[in-house]
């Protein structure tokens, strides 16, 4: 029996605000196995980003238990268990792409030679070979986001946490990056937790889709995808794909996500 990489057990998170307590997460239980690609989908306020931030120890649950790699989220962070990709690329404008990727490596104290080696490797992984000396503003939005994924990969974390990484990009670029991300996932065997607003994106990428709904933030459905690991873009026109997408949509509706 494999132990789960991320294990949430009756997780609760209540924010105390001026308007009273807000239930960001309520009774969230979930297991993510090694090598899974799990998407979290739901409307704003359903707690999908909050859950990801809990895994990253950027927020701390007020109830229940959460382990990452068998440790507390705080320890997992100390052990560099995960790389986090934010909505915006967040590259430093005063650093070249290569030096941006070195940022976590510098902080974690890798040697200069090791840094250079790793930068080369991850630039290759995200298909940005030869762009190391460019500054962020010289790259397109999609390339910047790829560079930020490279930065998250540079220190060999097992888990990749992604919070709507392609949300700000247009659909054509997004399709392309989704394809690349799948290829990257197949090559690196990372465990991915991926937050998105887009049903096709969630269905296309995931082995497991977690449907969430707001007030309080909770899980309404967990769908194990029947789609094969090998997924060309046109898999999105197959009946199997549409069926999964339909179930996701049903799940969102069941959570009264469209009420307001």
């Amino acid at each position, binding site marked *: 029996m494999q132990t789960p990489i991320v294990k949430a057990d009756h997780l609760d998170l209540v924010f105390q605000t001026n308007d009273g307590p807000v239930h960001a997460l309520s009774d969230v239980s979930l297991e993510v196995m090694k090598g899974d690609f799990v998407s979290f989908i739901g409307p704003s306020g359903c707690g999908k980003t909050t859950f990801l931030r809990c895994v990253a120890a950027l927020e701390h649950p007020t109830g229940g238990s959460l382990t990452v790699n068998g440790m507390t989220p705080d320890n997992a962070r100390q052990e560099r268990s995960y790389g986090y990709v934010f909505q915006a690329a967040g590259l430093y404008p005063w650093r070249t792409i290569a030096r941006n990727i070195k*940022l976590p490596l510098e902080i974690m104290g890798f040697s200069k030679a090791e840094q250079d080696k790793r930068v080369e490797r991850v630039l290759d992984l995200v298909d940005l070979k030869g762009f190391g000396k460019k500054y962020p503003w010289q790259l397109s939005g999609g390339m910047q986001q790829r560079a930020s994924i490279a930065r998250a990969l540079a220190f060999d974390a097992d888990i990749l946490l992604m919070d709507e990484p392609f949300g700000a990009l247009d659909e054509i670029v997004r399709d392309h990056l989704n394809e690349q991300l799948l290829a990257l996932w197949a090559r690196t065997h990372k465990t991915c937790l991926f937050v998105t607003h887009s049903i096709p994106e969630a269905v296309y990428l995931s082995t497991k889709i977690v449907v969430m709904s707001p007030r309080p933030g909770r899980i309404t459905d967990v769908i194990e995808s029947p789609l094969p690991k090998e997924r060309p873009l046109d898999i999105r026109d197959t009946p199997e794909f549409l069926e999964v997408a339909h179930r996701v949509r049903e799940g969102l509706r069941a959570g009264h996500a469209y009420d307001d």
Partner: protein
Amino acid sequence: MRSVLPILTVVMAIVALWYGAAVMLNRQWTLDQAARAGQELTLTQVVADTMVQDRPKLPAPHQVGAELWKTTGDMVLQGRAFSKRSLIYHGWITLSATLLGFAIGTGAGILLAIGIVHNRAMDMSVMPWAIASQTIPILAIAPMIIVVLNSVGISGLIPKAIISAYLSFFPVVVGMVAGLRSPDRMQLDLLKTYSASRSQVFWKLRWPSSMPYLFTSLKVGMAASLVGAIVGELPTGAVRGLGARLLAGSYYGQTVQIWSALFAAAILAASLVGIIGLIQRVTLKRMGMAR
């Protein structure tokens, strides 16, 4: 180069206005003199006389220019660049106080900003005091600083530099607090996911992010420093420095001397701010932040 023509146009307009104002303001004295001597003057004679008076109400531009040259370039040619009548000498006296004050003010400003950003108690307590310090008229507090320091045996350059620092630390504090706080939540969270230490967050994120803010506040601070140094020379009856020249000029009604000292101060300020601008361009370019 395209900006040369508009700039020249504006300069010409100002000079023309200035000449016009000089004629208007100095005319009365010319007419009074003529009346006393029982002379009738033609318009051209009146205008010509308003340009060459010894103690005009408003010196004409060429008089100020000539005085500036006489007390700077001409003295250099005579090998007396540092004589007591040379504006270079007085300018240097003021400049040295300005630079020392600027260094103290900038250093204190940056340190205070670092403290404010990193320490909640300082955040709550220092800023109101910094703002209050700037509401006190500098002319009121300058003599106090000089008297107090003199009583403990410090005089000369240091008191002036402290007054100058008093004025220049404020824009640096305000600018650097904004600059050090300019990284957004996401960038701070990113470093948190790397378990970065506070000093790593400072050196890798906050400090580089604040550079554009730093240079902007340095420019304001530099101009304020010069004002501080000059003000520091006024209430003490100083005999050296641009402030002393202004004071002496006003005692003896030497308007030409006042105006030339004013211009010397303005030229000095413009050059200092220009130098900071140059350093800013080079630095931001080397950081890859200039496009």
